[in-house]
C-alpha cells in the first residue's frame, strides 16, 4: 500500500522548473531511492514533500489524504521527518538536547510547556536516547554538536530525524562528505533502519543505492525518467544516457 504519493507535482522558480510533473508512489515499509544528476530537482522534491516550499501545481498525499501546502512545522507532526544534505543541527546543544528538541516536538503531550523542567519528560528523553543509540552516538550524548566530527554530525543529523518517531524518513544524502570508512558505517546504519521505517533516500553514491534500495526513481531536469527495481534501473538505457552522457559503462561500475 502506498503511504506517500505525489501527483503531477511541479515547482517553478521563475523561468526554472525545478520539479516538473512528478508522480510518485512510495510503498509503506519500502526503501525508495531517488537518484539523478546534480540539479535534477531531488532536494527541491524533498522541500516540497516537507512543506518547505509550496508546489506550483500538483498534489501530495499521505495515507491517501491530501497534505499539499501544509506548512513545514505541521508536516513533522504528520509523521514525516527529514535529514538535510548540509548538516543542519543545533550547534550549541548537546547531542542529547539535539535529539530531545525533535522528540519533544512530536511527543505525546506539550503539557507543562512553560513550566515543567525538561529533565522531567522521561519519555521524551528516552526517545531521544534511543535515537542516539540507533545511530551509535550514545557514548557522546553530553558533547556539544559543534564539537563532534563531521561524520558524527551526519549521524546526529539522522538521529534528529529518528527522534521524531516518524513513519516516513526522508534522507537527503546521508553520506555526503563522508570518508569511505564513514560511508560504510552510514550504509550499515541505513540498512539497519530498513523495515522499521518507510525510507525515501536521495543519494549520489551508486553502490549504496544499488545495494539498499527496494525501488529507485530517476530524476532528470526536474522530471521522472524511470522507475523500477535496482536491476531494472541498471539496465535502463535512458538512465544511462542521463547519467553518463551516453558512455556505455555499467552503472554499478561507475561509482565503485
Amino acid at each position: 500500500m502506498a503511504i506517500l504519493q505525489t501527483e503531477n507535482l511541479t515547482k517553478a522558480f521563475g523561468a526554472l522548473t525545478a520539479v516538473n510533473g512528478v508522480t510518485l508512489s512510495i510503498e509503506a515499509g519500502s526503501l525508495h531511492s531517488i537518484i539523478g544528476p546534480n540539479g535534477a530537482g531531488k532536494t527541491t522534491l524533498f522541500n516540497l514533500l516537507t512543506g518547505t516550499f509550496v508546489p506550483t501545481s500538483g498534489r501530495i498525499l499521505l495515507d491517501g489524504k491530501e497534505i499539499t501546502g501544509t506548512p513545514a512545522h505541521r508536516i513533522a507532526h504528520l509523521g514525516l521527518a527529514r535529514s538535510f544534505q548540509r548538516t543542519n543541527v543545533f550547534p550549541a546543544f548537546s547531542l542529547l538536547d539535539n535529539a530531545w528538541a525533535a522528540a519533544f516536538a512530536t511527543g505525546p503531550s506539550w503539557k507543562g510547556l512553560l513550566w515543567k523542567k525538561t529533565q522531567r519528560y522521561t519519555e521524551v528523553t528516552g526517545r531521544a536516547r534511543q535515537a542516539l543509540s540507533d545511530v551509535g552516538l550514545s557514548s557522546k550524548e553530553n558533547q556539544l554538536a559543534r564539537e563532534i566530527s563531521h561524520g558524527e554530525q551526519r549521524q546526529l543529523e539522522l538521529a534528529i530525524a529518528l527522534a521524531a518517531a516518524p513513519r516516513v524518513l526522508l534522507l537527503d544524502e546521508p553520506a555526503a562528505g563522508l570518508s569511505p570508512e564513514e560511508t560504510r558505517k552510514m550504509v550499515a546504519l541505513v540498512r539497519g533502519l530498513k523495515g522499521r521505517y518507510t525510507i525515501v533516500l536521495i543519494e549520489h553514491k551508486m553502490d549504496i543505492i544499488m545495494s539498499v534500495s527496494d525501488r529507485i526513481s530517476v530524476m532528470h531536469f526536474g522530471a521522472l525518467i524511470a522507475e523500477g527495481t535496482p536491476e531494472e534501473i541498471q539496465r535502463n538505457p535512458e538512465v544511462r544516457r542521463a547519467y553518463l552522457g551516453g558512455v556505455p559503462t555499467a552503472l554499478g561500475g561507475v561509482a565503485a
Partner: protein
Amino acid sequence: MNLKIPAIVAAVVLLPLVVRHAIATEIWIFAIFGLGLNLLLGYTGLLSFGQSTFFGSAAYVAGFLLKHYAINVFAALGIGIGVGAASALLVGYLCVQRSGIYFIMLTFALNQLFYFIAYQWTTVTGGEDGMPGIPRPAMFGIDFRDPLNYYIFVSVLFLISLWVMKRVVESPLGRILQAIRENEVRAEAVGYNVPRFKLLAFVIGGAFSGMAGVLYAMLFGIVPLEAISFVFSGNVVFATLIGGSGSLYGPIIGSFVFIWLSESVSTMWARWPLLLGVAFVIVVLFFRGGVVEAWSRFWLWQSSRQKT
C-alpha cells in the same frame, strides 16, 4: 548547585546598606526589565530595540489608574503585566514575520509609534512633562511610601521574577527558543511553529517589561516620557549585553553596572548622554563579551603583573 542564588539574596539584603534606597530599588526594577529582554535577546536570538514600548505603556496605563482611580498595588501590577504582554503581542505580531536587520528596525519603528502617541496625547500622558503624581498606596497596613518598605516589596518581586524566568528557561519552551536561536530552519523542520514561539517569547518578555514599568512609575511617582522612548530601549539592551546575554544572570549584573554608571555620569555633567554614548562605543570596541570577560581579562593582567 551553585552560589548564584545565595549571592543574589545576599546582594538584595546588603544593597540598601550601601546605596540610597531609590537607587537600590531601581537596580532590581531594571534587572526585571533586563530579564524580559534577555528571553528574546539571549535565549531566542531576537534583538528587540523596542522594549520600552511595553515598559512605558504599562507604566502609563497603571500610573493613570493609580492616580485617578486609586486602584491598589496588586491591581496595578496585574494591569501592568497585562498591558505589557498585550502591547508585546501587537508589536511582536508585526515583527516576527521579518528577520535580521528588518526585525530590529521594526521593533524600533513601532517603539516610535507608541512614543509619539504618548508625546502628543498630553491630556493623559502629560507629553514631555511626563505623568506626575503617581501614588504608592498602602497595602495590608504596609506604607509603601517608606523607601525601605518599597525596596523590600520590589526586591521580593524581583526574586519571584527571577525564579519564574528560571523555570521558563529550564522548561521545554526555553529549550525550543534556544533551538530557534541555534537553527531556525531545523526548529521548523522538527515541528515547531517558529513565528508562534517567537511571539510567545515576546509576550512573556513584554509581561516582565510591563511589571518593571509599573514598579518604576511607583518608585519615582512619575512616568517620564523617556520611559517609552528609544533611550530606555537602548539602555536595557546595553545593560543586558554588558552583563552578558549568554546567561540568565547576565541582565542582573548588567543592571548593577548600568544604574551605577548612569547615576555616576548623570551627576558628573549635564551632557551625560554623551558619556553614556562614549561608554557604549568603548564597550563595543574593547570589551565585547561583557563584564564577565572584562573581569577575567583584568585578572589575567593582574596576575601577569604580579609575576614580573
